[in-house]
């Protein structure tokens, strides 16, 4: 995608999100969350536009956008895979799961696949230890994951992508 159409896409996404919130500094986090969800990252032009739209100084927007783990200033995949490496999942073989996912997708921790479909991120405890080892893709939790189930799980998202 060239820069121009990317900027236009960002601009219209941000304009849409801003339209759903009151023009006030208190809307900042909600707006950032929605734009992150829509674009899978927060490009600088988006942050500048948000700062302007909500009358929040740019330094404040940058401060918030770089503080929370939920936000990313570089492009993230269309789906985020959280691999739990908390205590329970670790004991139940999270290491193996992480390795399997990363080698299947050819990405390291915190990285995004070349085609932009997945970002892989390890986390500490998803809060469902009884399902260990667990992973979460976008908002869906998968429990008692075994490496050979991964192709099936990931396949669902691939199919949806190519459909």
């Amino acid at each position, binding site marked *: 995608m060239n820069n121009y159409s990317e900027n236009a896409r960002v601009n219209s996404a941000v304009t849409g999100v801003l339209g759903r919130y009151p023009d006030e500094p208190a809307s900042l986090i909600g707006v950032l969350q929605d734009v992150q969800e829509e674009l899978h990252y927060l490009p600088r032009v988006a942050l500048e536009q948000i700062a302007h739209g909500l009358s929040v100084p*740019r*330094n404040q*927007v*940058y*401060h918030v956008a*770089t503080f*929370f*783990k939920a936000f990313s200033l570089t492009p993230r995949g269309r789906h985020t895979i959280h691999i739990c490496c908390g205590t329970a999942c670790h004991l139940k073989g999270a290491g193996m799961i992480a390795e399997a996912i990363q080698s299947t997708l050819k990405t390291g921790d915190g990285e995004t696949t070349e085609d932009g479909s997945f970002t892989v991120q390890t986390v500490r405890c998803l809060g469902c230890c009884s399902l260990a080892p667990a992973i979460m893709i976008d908002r869906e939790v998968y429990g008692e994951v075994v490496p050979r189930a991964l192709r099936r799980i990931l396949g669902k998202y691939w199919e949806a992508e190519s459909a």
Partner: protein
Amino acid sequence: MQFSLNGRNIAAEPGETVLSVARKNGVFIPTLCHHDAVSPSGACRLCVVQVSSGERSRIVSSCLYAPSENDRVETDTERVRKVRRMVLELLLARCPTVELIRDLARAYGIQRSRFTDGAGPSEERCVLCGLCVRVCDEVVGRHAISHAKRGIQRKITTAFDTQADECIGCGACVRICPTGALHYEDLPEQKQPERVMVELHTRVPLVRCSDCGRAFASPALFEHVSKSVNVPPTTLAACPACRSKSFAATAAQNPPSAPAFARAHARTYQSQLLASINEESS
């Protein structure tokens, strides 16, 4: 409102902090992130004191804590000193080359920190106290800098780590910084003279003094000062040196340069701090 401070009964305004009452009453409490010009933030935890009410006692930050009726506040108990030692040991691990931190640590009996990463002494000078951010936000009103990122990557910077046109090169952040982490450098010989905010990725154009021709401040700073103290910008067109010359023959010498002023200021603050600690511990 009555409470006791190191055993003395003291009256305080409702809402007044322990630190403010202590200072008024000549009781010394060390601080790093507090400055009367800006709002308190509780970032450094060096100012901790022990507050007891009834049987219970706890540690609070004196720059934020407003005492309740009949609180007993102690500013230098062993428990307090222990917390300060921990704070200083951590700060020393982060900023081993900062003299103020080293002196404070030494005053609390710490020679070296247990918390080094073995990578050799770090050159880091910033303790993330946030004074620079608050002075720029609250006093200068430019919102040019802020904390960014999190965890060990946390730092002070401009939006997107690049040139911040919000910055007017006033130097307030440089002066208020307790550890000398921020600097500016003037390039007066350039065709367009500039002030370089060294750590802040920012250059601010300077104009020349109407009398001596020395480049000394930015047009945006004139505008700001002229608005905030209500003097016409023309009064500001001469540099402070030329202005004082024309105001009074006796003030003919140059005032100290900005960095020298900052150093002198840091020294007085530092020596005051240390003198009081030594006095208390002796």
